């Protein structure tokens, strides 16, 4: 989030959070008025309002600062000021001091995506898992799935994506300071990052790091990469996702209603600071925010069974509800934090558990479905690579467009245990634009 450097910005955040609770057309009361006594909010709404403010401002102790205070706007502004006095920061007036706020922009200078080279009609997958033909198409909206060929695996798909990304950026492998890999299916050692390091022939002192998170692995990895670059520990990082579900979810081991949704794919992104020779037009990473929605812990559980099979507990209805509710909340949250209206977006690279959910999400967000690149419909749910393939598609579609025509991108994902993680690309900034970079 951009720093809340002036009172008007504070006011905008407070008013937006308030209207979420009290209703979009609620009048803003006199600052001194008691919001509960006047009946504008009840105690549930007051706490909900404060939680939204805590999340939007990073001032996690706002609720604690308001004990024995009147529930009013005035008290909230006083608490903001008290927090500012307690921990003054030269660059931000509220505790959220992101890399972005400090002016260390990290750019995605190139990207690439590959999917398994076998394209399987979903009816064939239905049959393989003993389901009535047409079930995946009619229930989930999946038309076909991308499956890895015999000679393809996480390493080959990931390496191919990485080599393409390096090629597009005209970046030599020796320039890499880190390779950060994520996969929800690679479970052997050497780890995927280490294997990619060898496969790509990176420098020996280039780090290799594996990041978890399953379907939100890409967002985790991008956040780690951003931190390494922003802290000055790296200049160039390759973030690589690769998932081959077709070998993990075999018909004899896992129920088709779950396993049939997944395909195989990989993606790669090359990240650099602006000093690291970013091309003329590149997207900068904005602020990430993360969370964990523990109330959905019962919706999905995957564990190793003693017989070598996977034990999958999968409540599809609860998961769908969780995915839609959370992703929609997340989009709203990114809007609030970044100040970017969703209508101005170039597109959204979200996780796509299945195409039906993308349709519902688009509807809930009042956005045209075209803002969400087609991934799951053609390739299936690619795990951590779903967001990657979607992001690559958006970046590719942006190429060749005039910088002024480009809108920001949002990335949002959910993973098992339903962590929710998001990245709001920051609003266009004149200082960055003057250097030829589009945000």
């Amino acid at each position, binding site marked *: 989030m951009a720093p809340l450097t002036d009172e008007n910005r504070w006011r905008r955040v407070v008013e937006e959070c308030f209207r979420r609770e009290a209703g979009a057309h609620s009048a803003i009361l006199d600052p001194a008025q008691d919001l509960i006594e006047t009946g504008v909010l009840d*105690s549930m709404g007051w706490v909900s309002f404060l939680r939204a403010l805590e999340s939007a401002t990073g001032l996690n102790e706002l609720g604690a600062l308001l004990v*024995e205070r009147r529930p009013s706007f005035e008290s909230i502004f006083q608490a903001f000021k008290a927090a500012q006095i307690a921990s003054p920061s030269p660059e931000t007036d509220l505790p959220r001091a992101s890399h972005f706020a400090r002016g260390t922009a990290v750019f995605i200078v190139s990207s690439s995506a590959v999917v398994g080279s076998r394209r399987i009609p979903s009816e064939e997958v239905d049959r393989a898992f003993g389901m009535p033909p047409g079930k995946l198409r009619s229930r989930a909206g999946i038309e076909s799935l991308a499956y890895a060929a015999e000679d393809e695996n996480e390493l080959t798909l990931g390496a191919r994506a990485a080599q393409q990304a390096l090629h597009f950026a005209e970046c030599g492998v020796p320039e890499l300071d880190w390779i950060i890999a994520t996969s929800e299916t690679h479970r052997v050692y050497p780890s995927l990052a280490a294997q990619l390091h060898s496969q790509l022939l990176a420098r020996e002192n280039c780090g290799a790091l594996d990041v978890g998170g399953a379907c939100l692995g890409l967002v985790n990895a991008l956040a780690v990469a951003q931190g390494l670059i922003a802290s000055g520990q790296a200049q160039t990082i390759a973030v690589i996702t690769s998932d081959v579900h077709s070998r993990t979810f075999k018909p004899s081991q896992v129920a088709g209603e779950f396993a049939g949704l997944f395909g195989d794919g990989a993606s790669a992104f090359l990240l650099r600071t602006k000093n690291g020779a970013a091309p003329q037009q590149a997207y900068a990473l904005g602020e990430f925010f993360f969370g*964990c929605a523990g*109330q959905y*812990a*019962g919706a999905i559980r995957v564990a190793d069974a003693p017989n070598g099979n996977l034990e999958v507990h999968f409540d599809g209805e*609860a998961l769908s509800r969780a995915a839609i509710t*959370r992703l929609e909340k997340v989009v709203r949250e990114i809007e609030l934090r970044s100040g970017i209206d969703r209508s101005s977006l170039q597109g959204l690279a979200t996780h796509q558990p299945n195409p039906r959910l993308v349709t519902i999400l688009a509807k809930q967000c009042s956005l045209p479905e075209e803002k969400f690149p087609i991934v799951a419909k053609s390739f299936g749910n690619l795990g951590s690579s779903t967001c990657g393939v979607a992001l690559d598609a958006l970046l590719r579609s942006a190429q060749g467009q005039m910088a002024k025509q480009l809108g920001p991108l949002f990335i949002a994902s959910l993973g098992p245990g339903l962590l929710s993680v998001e990245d709001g690309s920051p609003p266009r900034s004149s200082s960055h634009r003057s250097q030829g970079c589009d945000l």
Partner: protein
Amino acid sequence: MTKLLITEITRMGPAFCVIGLQREKDKIRSVRPVTAGANSWLHFPYQRGDVLQCELAPFSGAKPHIEDRVSTCGFQKEATVPEPEIVTFLRKAEIAGSLPDLFGCVLHENKRGSGLHALPLEPKRSICGTETKNLRLELCANELRATLVLSSGEVLRDLPVVDRDWRDFIGAALVEGRGANRIARLERFLNSQFHYKVLSCPHHFIRLGLTRPYHDLCWLMLDTLFPLPKHEWLEEF
């Protein structure tokens, strides 16, 4: 006459909501005595653990508050049951270990903010006991909120705490006469000693309840937290 073991006394604005346990053959179930004209009691001079004799008439209360019974005459105290024994009885009444089992329905996340709610016609009851793996109390502005983990691993956040005794305890901790830094001292207590005193107690147990429909939603709340707070704990912080 009905014999009722009082297990819950919760705050409802200026009034109290009361729930007790009633034995019915080999079953123990929750019953909520209400007055003929209201769901709550402005004056209820009894404590949890009191066994009261009363007359309760069936009452077709709105779902999900199927436990409502109209009290047709006064209460008469018969005996008192110690706290650990109350919990023993509560563990034999309505109990569940996971979110969907609590009220036999889907609990929805508040799309706009915090809290969980049910749709009024869906729950099969409005009160249920459960074990927790962890529990934290927190003051958010002037509201007492609980965050807890069920034995299923599901996490419930920002539940309003309506337990009268815990609310009174927090109120007493913040009384002006207790000197400086009261809020900080209370927060320290809730972040440290509370954990040892409550979670390590052998009869630690909670009951979750649903509010009456409010704007067509029944919100989840923490009705009861055992052990009950002890007045002498106030001396420790």
